[in-house]
């Protein structure tokens, strides 16, 4: 069972997040709650107080606190402003014979997408958009579904 689980682990986790479709990493995810923009004062985000004040010898600005985990693992170059944490699959109605099928592509932040990724132009003026949904799947799974899941899990193993 253990071997089986570890074999499927990555893809299973991916599938769950995909079906939830609510996990997004943002580099400015220092505050992971929906920001009320009316009450957000200019000093309350990391725009001035963190990012600009700490400078590297070469003049490059350093990252605020939360990103350290992220930087250590996947993005040490601050290349991303927002990123899906988990591989996703292509659209179901896309062409499987296309040379781009299943290939991952990163977009510059001034290109609009209507998915859960915000489009900010790296600017505070469009930062309004922190996160559309709660990033952590904390909503409890209904008991019947949980029971089903447990049963199927047992059968599956």
């Amino acid at each position, binding site marked *: 069972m253990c071997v089986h689980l570890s074999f499927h682990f990555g893809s*299973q986790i991916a599938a769950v997040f995909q079906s939830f479709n609510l996990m997004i990493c943002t580099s400015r995810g220092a505050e992971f709650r929906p920001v009320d923009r009316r009450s957000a004062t200019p000093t309350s985000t990391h725009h001035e107080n963190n990012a600009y004040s700490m400078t590297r010898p070469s003049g490059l600005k350093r*990252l605020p606190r939360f990103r350290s985990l992220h930087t250590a693992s996947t993005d040490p170059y601050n290349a991303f402003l927002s990123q899906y*944490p988990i591989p996703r699959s292509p659209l179901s109605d896309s*062409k499987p014979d296309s040379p781009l099928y299943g*290939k991952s592509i990163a977009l510059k932040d001034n290109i609009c997408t209507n998915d859960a990724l915000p489009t900010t132009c790296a600017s505070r003026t469009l930062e309004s958009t922190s996160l559309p949904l709660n990033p952590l799947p904390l909503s409890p799974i209904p008991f019947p579904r949980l029971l089903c*899941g447990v049963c199927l899990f047992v059968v599956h193993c």
Partner: protein
Amino acid sequence: MVDYFSPFDATVVTLLRDAGAIITGKTNMDEFAMGSTSTNNLVSVVNPHRGKEGEELSAGGSSGGSAAAVAAGLAWGYYLLFLIPSYILSLLFLFCSLGCLFFGVNRCASNGVHGRAIGTDTGGSVRLPASYCGIIGFKPTYGLLSRYGIISYAHSLDTVGLFTRTIPDTISLFRTSLSVSPSPSNRIDILNKHDKHDPTSLSPALRNLFPRPRNQGSRSWTFGIPREYNLPSLHPSMTRAWSTAISKLRSSGNTVNTISLPRTREALSAYYVLATAEAASNLARYDGVRYGFTTADDDVGGYRDSVLAARNAGLGEEVRRRILLGNYTLSARLISFPTHSLFAVRWW
């Protein structure tokens, strides 16, 4: 604007998604693409390549994040997994098996490493970072790729550009017809398409006028190399690469001619006049009323105060500087008209 997300995909994104590509994230850039080092933003992009003494280098800009992501081959961000407490993880685990049984998880993309990214180029914003990071950057001619859905900086100069690691990757993004027989009927272009939403997109009739490679290698081309581009200040390694490319073109049967673009010297000045002027009018919408950051105390004063506060707080230093410059350019006639007429009256 509290929960503003774009209501539509940019045409480029729609085309990519239709082709089966997966959007992984949004990359860092200079604020509103203004800059050429990717440092006019919240956090600077760091070049994946280090200097000789291990120092951090700029990734170039403004599409520095795209270039760095491609150069470093960054994968998906997994870090949120660490934040999930173990009991939630176990619940997820149970739920996973369900998902696995029902939805067939094998469709998950295995190719998680970035080999491709999309950027925009107004005044070198694709070419510079590609050069700094040592990857392939392709800036197509203005009007070839649709700009619908791309937040504009300067309309008359903005283009969409591509970052890849290899030339075949660029071709596969731009068009796929090089390997197939490229008759117009079975050309499958991915991004290189006319878009009716973008008024500056080249029409199909105009596109048909472009020469196409019939058979790979059998047709020779004529290249013009501007004399003015051979600057004395160019780094020797760049000059070497330049001349190697020219000799390779010659040896593969193409003609290379020297041409002259005498206005090259003024190009940068013209760019800064045009781009700032267009930026001033394009960014006027971010006043905190229609779009943009709204400060908490915007109800205290009138409209002017609220716009002032919102723009001061929301826009970065470089952006404000360029808007100011652009407004000077745009209002140049307002100043000169009365003064000139006064001078005329006085002279008369």
